């Protein structure tokens, strides 16, 4: 695939490195001359200096034949415009924007960006996961189905310990997929599976019912 990366900061650099190693044709557009120089010295001639929101620049690098454009600058508005120009002017089939302000995720979606990645939310989620008492962790979002895969920790004092799954009032649309225990192998839960302290339950749910799922599993 021919992939254009807008923004040659740390994220753009490591993203390009990873995409190159997967065998893709990658080109970075970066405004800052020093950054360009460093990238070209380290990764070979993959960076051109320019403004990735400017049509002349995008035309010059053959954006019309790109399979994908990924905008990862530090400014949400620049990422939005780079993606919109690529999409509407050059008919790039897939555009991805990094979003720093989590609020902008829904706005970007409404404005036609195919995929948004909220770096702030990802970092927040990862840090929260490191807090031992954190009850629910988002593992994955299945966007087109409106589903998410989450992990719920069962605390040692939970009232659901020793109870079978069928005795819990799980919210509609939520399904338990896997239970990871400390000493045993991960197992697929059935109606008669008994919850134990420190179990980690992997479940499929919707954003609306994740609170209810957490409460049902932990007996809150």
């Amino acid at each position, binding site marked *: 695939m021919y992939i254009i990366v807008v923004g040659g900061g740390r994220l753009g650099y490591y993203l390009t490195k990873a995409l190159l190693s997967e065998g893709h044709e990658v080109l970075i557009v970066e405004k800052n001359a020093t950054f360009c120089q460093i990238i070209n010295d380290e990764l070979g001639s993959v960076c051109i200096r320019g403004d990735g929101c400017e049509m*002349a620049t995008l035309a010059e690098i053959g954006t019309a034949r790109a399979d994908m454009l990924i905008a990862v600058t530090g400014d949400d508005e620049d990422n939005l415009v780079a993606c*919109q120009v690529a999409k509407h002017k050059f008919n790039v089939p897939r555009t991805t924007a990094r979003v720093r302000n989590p609020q902008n995720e829904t706005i970007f979606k409404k404005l036609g960006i195919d995929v948004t990645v909220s770096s702030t939310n990802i970092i927040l989620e990862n840090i929260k996961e490191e807090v031992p008492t954190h009850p629910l962790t988002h593992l994955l979002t299945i966007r087109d189905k409106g589903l998410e895969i989450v992990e719920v920790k069962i605390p040692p004092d939970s009232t659901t310990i020793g109870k079978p799954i069928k005795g819990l009032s799980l919210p509609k649309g939520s399904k338990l997929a896997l239970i990871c225990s400390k000493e045993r192998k991960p197992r697929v839960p059935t109606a008669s599976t008994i919850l134990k302290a420190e179990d980690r339950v992997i479940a499929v749910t919707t954003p609306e019912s994740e609170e209810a799922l957490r409460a049902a599993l932990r007996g809150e």
Partner: protein
Amino acid sequence: MKVVIMGCGRVGAQLAGLLDTDGHSVTVLDTDAYSFRRLPSTFSGTALIGNGLNEEVLKKAGIEEADAFVAVTQGDNRNVMAAQIAKHIFNVSKVVCRIYDPLRQELYSMLGLEAISPTTIFAQILKEKLES
């Protein structure tokens, strides 16, 4: 009518003053309070510190009741994004933004945004002056 102006530079401040004089209800947004010095001393509207790309700030500025929204910050992309938020999220009926880059202005005009490029207009005026 009620107008929200994002960006209190020379153009934003002047526009705010003109609309205010005409009796319109004007709210001007800028991230830097120092910019408000440009507003005329007679200005009776509201000057609000905040980023117009933030939905909460826009709500505080009264965008939900606004009849018009104008984006005239120094950043083309900022203006484009704010104008799209006003138009597509808050459904403001009249939205105008400034885009210096003529190519980008053309694209967004094609996409249905009312965008003005001072670069194109001023170059045209200069040309006419020189040729007359």
